[in-house]
């Protein structure tokens, strides 16, 4: 099956996921077109992280279908490594490799996994450092960087693999308020360049600004969704209203 650009880049259909007897996702469906930015919001524990971790097969699912560029993720024969070359991920806790410098963190996967030429990768990595505005921090270790700086290295590290879509799991939730802005700025830049982004976030103003579509999840289901213009002003479900009133 070949995927065409008119079809969703990521297509999630009726996905169920349990941890043991505990059902976390109860029939989730959503589509993401190429170049789209979607935001998933919802109370803590509603299964947002679980959902996006299913997209790059960090979690497996029990039922349903996840297509990434036409490739079925819920397939025991899936080549996870091939899938993950297309799907980048940035985590709440940055998860940089502490024994490597910023530049090495960015270069390692393209050199070791994609077997690209080292000099070529270094050039790209230095450009990415500039892009995330960390010139001069190439040789700093993660421990020497602020949270916001580490998170921007993590974004650059993900970009270095040249993915088609990037998953962001509450990437500003662990940051000091003063460094949240610089990370959001970086993500906004990517969105403007046409990168397909799936974001889990609590930053409502940001979601309203960059998202093409917003999904509100609660207890494993999508309660309500829509484009930001209508989502925030015309929320109908009481759960959405309550959540928005608490957070806005």
């Amino acid at each position, binding site marked *: 099956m070949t995927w065409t650009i008119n079809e969703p880049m990521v297509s999630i259909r009726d996905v169920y996921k349990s941890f043991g007897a505990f059902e976390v996702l109860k029939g989730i469906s959503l589509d993401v077109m190429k170049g789209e930015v979607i935001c998933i919001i919802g109370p803590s524990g509603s299964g947002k992280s679980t959902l996006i971790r299913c997209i790059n097969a960090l979690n497996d699912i029990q039922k349903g279908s996840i297509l990434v560029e036409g490739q079925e993720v819920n397939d025991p024969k899936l080549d996870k490594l091939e899938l993950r070359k297309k799907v980048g991920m940035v985590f709440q806790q940055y*998860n940089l490799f502490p024994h490597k410098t910023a530049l090495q963190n960015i270069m390692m996967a393209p050199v070791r*996994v994609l077997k690209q030429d080292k000099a070529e990768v270094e050039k790209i990595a230095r450009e990415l450092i500039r892009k995330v505005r960390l010139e001069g921090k190439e040789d700093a270790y993660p421990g020497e960087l602020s949270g916001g700086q580490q998170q921007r290295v993590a974004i650059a590290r993900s970009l270095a693999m040249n993915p088609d879509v990037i998953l962001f799991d509450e990437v500003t939730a662990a940051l000091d308020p003063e460094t949240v802005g610089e990370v959001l700025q970086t993500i906004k830049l990517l969105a403007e360049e046409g990168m397909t982004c799936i974001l889990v976030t609590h930053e409502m103003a940001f979601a309203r600004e960059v998202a093409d579509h917003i999904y509100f999840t609660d207890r494993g289901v999508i309660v309500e969704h829509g484009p930001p213009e209508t989502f925030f002003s015309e929320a109908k479900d009481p759960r959405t209203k309550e959540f928005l009133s608490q957070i806005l």
Partner: protein
Amino acid sequence: MRTTTLKSVLPVLLPAKAKSGSLFSFRLKLWHGIILLCICLLTSTAGFAQSDPIKASVFEILLRWMPLLLTAFIFNIAISMLAMGIGTAAGTVLGLGQISPNAGLRKFCWFITQFFRNSPWLVLLFFAMFLLPFEFSIGGIDIPLPDWLKATIGLSLPVMANMSEIVRGAVNSLPSGQWEAAESLAYSRRQTLWLVILPQCVKRMLPPWMNLYSILTMATVLASVVGVSEVMTTTGRALASEGGRPDLLAPFYSFVLLIFFIYCYPIARWTVYLEKKFAVKG
């Protein structure tokens, strides 16, 4: 005997709090050495005043035997280093087996580890002495297996088991985010292990590994029980050839303790230093 796995991981997880009654809790202190030095000097010189002038003084006798004792001690060091090398290599393999995705291999390595970790070292030594052949042949060539080599292999068994636990504990002590980050960058399991996980583990493993070495060094005297000519055996022979004088016992044995202390104490200090350094930096 330690049977709970939780306790066995503790020294690795919490290097600074390793006082859980485990193998790793023993720590040499400077006053241990000072007391040994005092005993050695006092007992070897005390006899001076009243001793028979014809009989050589205790101190002179000790001085005469010192070169031989020190040479024998070097043999202990050699055994300890070789056993440490074998044990570290085998233990690393075993430890990696304990975290293998293959459940069968994992259980097997866990069992081997627990078996050798919970057996007394002396029993393992006898086990090696009597079960290993005195020679074996590879491709028609007979290679002798002298007693000291058998003893070394016997001592490397508990080192292997403890090393296996050190490796397992260090790998498990890393945050799972490190695995996830590597996986989501399309690293294979092997690449994750060798490029991301193990390099970070080396630092965490160093203090407990050095502790293990200290304990092994002190355990090399067990080889005297099976007749290897190491420092304890040599001391016994020296005492016998001096006619078994009871006034020689304390100075000779405290001298042996003292040289062990002089060798092991810097290692213990260095371990403490590394633990503190890594505890701060994380």
